[in-house]
């Protein structure tokens, strides 16, 4: 039986469910912790379903064999049940208000008249890898598929803010999208950036992913792109920008998406941090993509390992690979460089002579020397996962 697009680990979890479906022809049964099922959502490929309302869908690792993640394959993560399922460009507007000289109400065509910029950047959910936390934590139980590498096109946030004219004394920009809470008591999703950050050259209001319009589930018609920072800031279906005189105090900044205020963003597993700060920049990561963890190889037959590596906006300087559980490390060859926000593909030739189990590890270092920890770092919300992964390749 061949199930394309899911890792062996996914496969082991999904196979029972799939078999049951095939046998009975009925609706899939209940999925337990860690189990996954492939589902096709509108404008999306078969992705691993975490939750349906609101939708949270994870990208199977096979898609990361490509340098660019297709729009259909990019993960989906919404916070609140009332997500936009239709957008009419005749009435849709992006409004800019608050501490500005001229409030703006822009159509998509208005927006497209600003200078167009384009770059490739990794988008990654703050909770990517949360399912590997030990002890486990509440939240979306992502494996490693809440990420992707996309070429974004759009306009500079700075240019739009400049058109509005920021008044003296303004401190932050607050971003809201078209999604709404299921109850009035649930805090509506909103994020903010300090004015300095918001005016950085690369912060983008994106209207294209890989040269095409965004799928609705990924934030059509426009979303914020904050390269180097976790996707919680990349507000989807962006519709409202408020320039504020005071720092934003909303729930999604004051209570959620926070990490321990320690050098590693971590605390003793199971403990409560004394102080927390908002999560911002991504940690450095590298992953083995092919052959996948758990694959079987033939002794004596050469094979090229490949994977991806990325960091929070500083580019990857080197990737090392160990095929003996971290005793010896050798440099991997790096593929095409699409800039400091893109991930880079790495390649490593391996010719396993003896049969047995090989413990394969990958480690990346970025251009400012940041790397990955040997052991997992823990925090209560399950963020910043970037330990050196242990993969097993079985040689027969």
């Amino acid at each position, binding site marked *: 039986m061949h199930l394309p697009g899911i890792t062996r680990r996914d496969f082991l979890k999904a196979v029972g469910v799939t078999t049951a479906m095939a046998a009975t022809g009925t*609706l*899939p049964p*209940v*999925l*337990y*912790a*860690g*189990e996954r099922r492939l*589902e096709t*959502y*509108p*404008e999306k490929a078969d992705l691993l*379903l*975490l*939750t*349906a*309302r*609101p*939708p949270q869908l994870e990208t199977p690792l096979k898609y990361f064999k490509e340098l660019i993640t297709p729009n259909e394959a990019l993960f989906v993560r919404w916070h609140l*049940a009332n*997500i936009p*399922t*239709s*957008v*009419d*460009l*005749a009435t849709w507007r992006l409004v800019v208000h608050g501490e500005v000289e001229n409030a703006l109400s822009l159509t998509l065509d208005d927006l497209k008249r600003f200078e167009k910029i384009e770059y490739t950047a990794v988008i990654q959910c703050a909770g990517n890898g949360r*399912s590997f936390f030990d002890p*486990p*934590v*509440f939240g*979306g*139980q992502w494996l490693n598929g809440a990420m992707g590498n996309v070429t974004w096109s759009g306009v500079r946030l700075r240019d739009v803010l400049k058109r509005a004219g920021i008044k003296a004394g303004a401190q932050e920009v607050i971003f809201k999208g078209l999604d709404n809470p*299921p*109850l*009035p*008591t*649930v*805090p509506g999703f909103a994020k903010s950036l300090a004015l300095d950050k918001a005016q950085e050259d690369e912060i983008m209001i994106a209207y294209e992913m890989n040269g095409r*319009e965004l799928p*609705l*589930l990924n934030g*059509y*018609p426009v979303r914020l792109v904050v390269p180097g920072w976790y996707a919680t800031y990349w507000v989807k279906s962006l519709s409202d920008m408020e320039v504020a005189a005071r720092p934003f105090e909303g*729930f999604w900044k004051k*209570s959620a998406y926070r990490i321990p205020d320690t050098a590693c963003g971590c605390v003793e597993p199971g403990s409560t941090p004394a102080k927390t700060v908002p999560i911002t920049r991504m940690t450095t990561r590298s992953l083995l993509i092919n052959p996948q963890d758990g694959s079987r190889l033939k002794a004596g037959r050469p094979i090229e390992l490949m994977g991806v590596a990325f960091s929070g906006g500083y580019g990857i300087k080197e990737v090392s690979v160990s095929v003996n559980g971290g005793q010896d490390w050798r440099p991997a060859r790096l593929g095409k460089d699409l800039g400091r926000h893109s991930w880079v593909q790495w390649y490593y030739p391996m010719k396993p002579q003896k049969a047995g189990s090989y413990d394969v590890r990958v480690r990346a270092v970025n251009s400012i020397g940041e790397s990955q920890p040997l052991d997992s770092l823990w925090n209560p919300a399950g963020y910043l996962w970037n330990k050196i992964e242990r993969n097993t390749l079985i040689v027969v």
Partner: protein
Amino acid sequence: MRIRLLFILMTICAGGAAGAADLHRITLPPPTVSLKEGAGVYVVRRYCSICHSLDYITTQPKFPKAKWQAEVAKMIKVYGAPIPEESVKVISDYIAAYYGTGS
């Protein structure tokens, strides 16, 4: 008169076409998860699915009852879930028994 009517019709059709081109719509598949039968399952279905699909429960790791109690309390305190106090125990007992560590 005829020409004017034709003109109006053409305008409506053109407008309709433009409107369709501007509208981007998707239809989401309905949640399919169904909880295991057991004491309290109706209470869980009734309250938890107000805000989210029930796979938010079934996809979580196995947690003890105390953790689920705290989680249900958070739903009330932080998100304003309209769960009556007497149902908190019913909900956390059910989830701990069927999707948690049991105790």
